[in-house]
């Protein structure tokens, strides 16, 4: 009986893994690029140039961060930027006007966004 069950269990595991891979591929296919996520979620305040001059900026009491400013962005660690995007400005001691995007973006997408921001500022995060 064990001789039969062992190959059966192995086949079931292989099938589960294959199905998992298929599902992951489907998710990946629908994943958005960091540049597109930046456009949809960030441009409204940070602007299409990323300099903090989005359409909502005139109505904010705290100016949105200029993502192209290497000096300012270089003072923030990647973890700090990740936390600000995921949990909002308050989580890193900044403005409530930066909302938490953790309910819209998963961790992988937020990590991609952090990389995208590093490309915009042409700077590295504070270690």
């Amino acid at each position, binding site marked *: 009986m064990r001789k039969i069950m062992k190959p059966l269990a192995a086949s079931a595991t292989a099938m589960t893994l294959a199905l998992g891979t298929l599902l992951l591929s489907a998710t990946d296919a629908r994943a958005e690029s960091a540049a597109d996520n930046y456009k949809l979620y960030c441009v409204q305040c940070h602007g299409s140039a990323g300099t903090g001059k989005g*359409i909502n900026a005139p109505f904010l009491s705290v100016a949105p961060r200029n993502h192209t400013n290497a000096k300012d962005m270089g003072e923030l660690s990647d973890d700090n930027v990740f936390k600000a995007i995921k949990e909002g400005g308050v989580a890193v001691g900044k403005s*409530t006007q930066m909302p*938490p995007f953790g309910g819209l973006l998963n961790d992988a997408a937020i990590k991609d966004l952090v990389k995208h921001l590093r490309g915009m500022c042409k700077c590295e995060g504070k270690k």
Partner: protein
Amino acid sequence: MRKLSRIMAFMIALVPALGAPVAFADGKSLVAANKCGDCHKMAGPSAATIAEVLKRKAPDLFYAGSKFNKEWLVGYLQKPTVVRPGGVVYLNNIKTAGDTDTVGSVDKCASKLSAGDAAQVADYLMTLKDASMKAGAFKKGEIKSAQARRVLFKEQACDACHDFGKGGGLSCPTMVGAGARLNPDWMYSFIKDPVHWDPKVWMAKRDFDEATLQLIVNFLVTQ
């Protein structure tokens, strides 16, 4: 015998027409005649990718009956106004000069119906519902304006993206007239889980507790 079968066939053909309320059928025809479906999605699902969102020309209407108050719809259909100051998809209306973005011209809905047609279309739109939305989720209670304002403006900065009548963000719908426009049960549901209604919505999802949700919606119905 042939005559009898013809009468029978006529009566059978008549059954569906008699079964459906006349107003709904007319409203549906008017929606088709006015080509509302050219801009609005009249059947789900909502856009699932950013590329699809960018093609959106007007708000999804396949859950209009869950979202709107009928009286508001009747008025709006006769005299459309701009509800979203940045346009339906703000990204499609941005004008950039130097590094500064502003909103370009935002068009109102081009359709303008007579009072009679508006009533029929509203009747039809009110039949388009999301069955999963919980009716009665909103509990009308005391309006605690000061407390609600603290949550909405100080803690969550909702006015960063929404206009509340005193100058607010442009990327999201105005909250001026929200009480007349929106079904409070839908407001409750949307604030609780905006992604359920629009997978690519650019409004952040917050984890409000039940009391805070009721506080917010009770305030919004007064707007």
